[in-house]
């Protein structure tokens, strides 16, 4: 049987620091995906995810085991990502843009992998719709985007999202609801067969 996150945390705390690698390997995909969707930048998403894991390791003593490790990891990642986004928003107002990212770093995007199966036309249509949906998600404000991504893309239950975001399950449901409404409104003109 697979070792639970809590058991791995116990091993790390007892001095087996390399066991932390297993936690990184287990959770890096979801945390990276969330960071990427919040920042839209592959390098920054990697940086945020790494910083989050380093912070988790440093604060492992304060991790409360009644909280799922994944939710704790999400919370730390979100805090780091939000701080970076705030800083970036602030930097945009600085004169001369002296601290702005150079060379259009913000525009780096991860190449989507080619999909197998189904006909080329269907694949193209699906990819087109998917791409439209991803663009619409990226345009959502952070407070709606995060719950939507955690629910629809990462398939987390509302209770866990509530724990991660520190808001009530009802508030989570409302935010997901609003996100869906906005996305449907944005996508309906182009994909009426799905969103009308």
């Amino acid at each position, binding site marked *: 049987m697979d070792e639970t996150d809590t058991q791995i945390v116990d091993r790390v705390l007892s001095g087996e620091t390399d066991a932390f690698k297993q936690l990184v390997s287990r959770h*890096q*995909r979801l945390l990276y995906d969330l960071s990427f969707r919040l920042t839209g930048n*592959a390098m920054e998403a990697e940086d945020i995810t790494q910083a989050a894991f*380093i912070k988790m*390791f440093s604060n492992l003593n304060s991790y409360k085991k009644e909280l799922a490790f994944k939710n704790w990891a999400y919370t730390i990642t979100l805090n780091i990502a939000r701080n970076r986004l705030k800083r970036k928003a602030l930097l945009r107002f600085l004169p001369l843009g002296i601290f702005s990212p150079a060379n259009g770093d913000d525009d780096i995007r991860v190449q989507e992998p080619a999909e197998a199966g189904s006909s080329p036309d269907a694949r193209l249509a699906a990819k087109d719709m998917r791409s439209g949906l991803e663009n619409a998600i990226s345009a959502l404000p952070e407070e709606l985007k995060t719950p939507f991504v955690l629910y629809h893309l990462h398939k987390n239950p509302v209770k866990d999202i509530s724990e991660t975001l520190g808001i009530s399950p009802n508030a989570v449901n409302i935010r997901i609801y609003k996100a869906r409404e906005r996305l*449907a409104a944005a996508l309906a003109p182009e994909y009426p067969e799905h969103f009308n």
Partner: protein
Amino acid sequence: MKNNDLEKVFDAACGNIPLKEPRDLWPGVSMGIKGRREQARHSKALWTVGFTAAAVLLVLSIPGASESIKNGLKRIFSSAYSVQLGGNAAATGTLISTDGELKQIRAGDILLEVRVTGMDEQRAMIELSVFYTGKQAGGPARKLISKPRILAMKGKPAEITVTDNQGKPVYKFKMTPTEKDPASYTGTLAPIPPAP
């Protein structure tokens, strides 16, 4: 379209969106963890060197020992203090204690315990314990760094000088245990600026 229907639509649509795949983040995380450890070890070493030596090379002085004392001790001490250690922000306040009562002053990771005890009509004992309370590998630490005591003359300033292993003063603790109302008792703990 109803939001319940939208939930199904988005469940289906988002099912086609693959999570973003990061490269293996462990090497970067591992390096970051090592960097943090080095940093922590370095800063801890400075404290350890400074205060372990300080415990040995404690200099006690009792100024005014030959002065005649006219006031009696009223079993209440009130001391204004100022603590600034290790680059932390200065903490100030007034320490009011009854005879023999242990009181605490916290300055960042440094905890000072001060006890003032009346010995007779002329003298009072000032006991100072300096603890380091930062986090260590096994959890929170409470490590005694130095525990000087001084027999002070009432109404006269008593001074405890803590030095490092080079004989250089690190900080001073000053207190004037006098009787009467609490406002007449004063005390300071002031850092000594490093010699040029």
